[in-house]
């Protein structure tokens, strides 16, 4: 049973089409992340689902109910905002209970729900404080709590961790994941941070220009990006692209006189045919050292720049006339100017059509 369905959703701001015929099905209990660069329409989509924006066309169903014309509060959702949007003049308890009081929920019930939310989020000691006296992380927890007490099936998160510093963000990310496991609610989560997306999501919807590029599990998105944009957007450091063409046989990719064997590539759309294309190789796919010989593709390179990251080391070089970076173990002792032999399997990479940029 799907919990949230978006059908042909279109949104125009005047003459500008912000969202274009979007279709998304979100399963009950699923954690869906809307990922994209700023301005891609991900927050707009979330606001449409919440009912905070009037849509131009299409339908929205939540819990099997058509809620397209319903007020946000009637849709059975809870929402958490980037700026927390806590009511600054009320205590934490007041923040949590204000909406319930307004909905005339009986007092004991309010107390029960607040207590439960506070327990889940471990904010019991903070209940009497004002938001101004809380840290960023605590505020965000309260904001989540406010969604929690509403006792709804769908949670909407609008970049909830963006205002926090890196360390806190990582901690809260874990907590969010735990929370999801515990509650098993449907969650729709907007972020521009791919680490959050990868770690949290059951499925990621990558958006660009108001259109969903790919909606799939994190590993699918990572390993089989549906187009060049997704490939470039996901993964850090960024994927390497070679510009070239697939040879007649479909067994080789040629870029600047360098040949990449494609034996074993699982083509998405039938057989590979000769055409101009991009070959994308993840920096993590590169192998050095003794195992190199077994790789379908090997090459000698000169190290140009070394970036030690602790756990691993990033090497910058040039391959087939293109800037190329790959990852080595953090223990590797390499210096600029060193010669190295590297190898990888191009068939594990991704091929994109030159003109459509779609995955082949």
């Amino acid at each position: 049973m799907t919990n949230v369905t978006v059908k042909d959703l279109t949104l125009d701001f005047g003459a500008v089409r912000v969202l274009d015929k979007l279709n998304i099905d979100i399963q009950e209990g699923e954690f869906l992340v809307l990922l994209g660069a700023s301005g891609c329409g991900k927050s707009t989509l979330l606001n449409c689902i919440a009912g905070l924006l009037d849509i131009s066309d299409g339908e929205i169903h939540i819990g099997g109910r058509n809620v397209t014309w319903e007020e946000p509060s009637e849709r059975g959702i809870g929402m958490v905002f980037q700026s927390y949007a806590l009511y600054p003049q009320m205590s934490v308890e007041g923040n949590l209970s204000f909406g319930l009081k307004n909905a005339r929920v009986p007092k004991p019930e309010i107390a029960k729900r607040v207590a439960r939310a506070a327990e889940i989020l471990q904010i019991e000691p903070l209940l009497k404080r004002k938001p101004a006296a809380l840290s960023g992380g605590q505020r965000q927890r309260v904001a989540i709590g406010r969604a929690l007490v509403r006792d709804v099936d769908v949670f909407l998160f609008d970049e909830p961790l963006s205002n926090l510093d890196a360390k806190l963000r990582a901690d809260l990310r874990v907590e969010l994941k735990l929370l999801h496991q515990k509650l098993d609610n449907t969650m729709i989560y907007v972020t521009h941070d791919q680490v959050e997306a990868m770690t949290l999501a059951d499925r990621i919807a990558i958006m660009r220009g108001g259109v969903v590029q790919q909606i799939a599990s994190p590993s699918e998105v990572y390993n089989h990006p549906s187009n060049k944009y997704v490939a470039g957007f996901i993964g850090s450091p960024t994927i390497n692209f070679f510009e070239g063409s697939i040879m007649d046989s479909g067994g080789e990719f040629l870029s600047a006189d360098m040949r990449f064997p494609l034996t074993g590539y699982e083509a998405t759309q039938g057989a590979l045919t000769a055409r101009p294309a991009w070959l994308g190789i993840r920096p993590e796919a590169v192998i050095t050292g003794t195992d190199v010989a077994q790789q379908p593709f090997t090459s000698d390179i000169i190290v140009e720049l070394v970036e030690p990251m602790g756990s691993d080391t990033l090497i910058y070089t040039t391959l087939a006339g293109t800037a190329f970076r790959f990852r080595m173990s953090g223990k590797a002792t390499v210096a600029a100017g060193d010669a190295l032999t590297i190898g990888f399997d191009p068939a594990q990479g991704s091929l994109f059509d030159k003109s459509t940029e779609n995955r082949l």
Partner: protein
Amino acid sequence: MTDATPVSGVTPRGTKPRKRLTPTNIMLYGTLFVASVYYLLPLYVMVVTSLKGMPEIRLGNVFSPPVEVTFEPWVKAWAQACTGINCDGLSRGFWNSVQILVPSVVISIAIASINGYALSLWKFKGSEVFFTILIFGAFIPYQVMIYPIVILLRESGEVLSAITGTKIRLMGSIWGLVIVHTIFGMPILTLLFRNYFASVPEELFKAARVDGAGFWQIYFQIMLPMALPIFVVAIILQVTGIWNDFLFGVIFTKPDTYPMTVQLNNIVNSVQGVKEYNVNMAATMLTGLVPLIIYFASGKLFVRGIAAGAVKG
């Protein structure tokens, strides 16, 4: 809660159909409309009255539009209305006001912007105390200070005369009034600039100091260009404020140099026979024209400026 969904079995799709005439909207626009009438009525009455002849006015409806439009009241108000034996209307006051306005605005803003700048970025021991006194000063009724200022101006005039060897009078001259406007404009303007400069990222200031820039260099080369919007606001506030001033104009100038508001009051109160309401209203409109033009021309800047200045206070 879910009753809100479809009435006639239509599947909700696309934009929620909204009735234009919801009670909320009627209330909203109704209130705005009524308020607009209240705010526009005087303007309407001013215009209408100023375009009527006296016989029509005596018929006695301030709201009825003029049957015969005449511009004579305007001509009279501008060029012929009498105070005593001077019958040159408001025109003289207009030029006086311009002459008072320009130096007053320039000097008061120059000084206040430097104050604000020094108070927010170059705090020194006691600077906050002076600022506090200044702000309190904004609340001191002018009446408390007028008389001593008269004396102060007289004495400073004499001191200046002694120093320069030529006769300088501050009292009754335009410069005396400029000083008074500068003094009484100082609290609010200084506050405005202080708040604005306080919102400038401190790093910018620190970077400039590390680069070896001094007080004036930072002011002129970095802060001044950045503060342009707030200067526009200050100018708007001061132009309207000084143009509209009556109390200082009446006490610190003389008939030669009376600003327009004072002359307006003179003309309106110089009743010869019957009150010529149409001329009075034309004179009133003429006097209000300059600030109104400034206001309509600056439009959003005026609003944005007030927002920037006042909200932080």
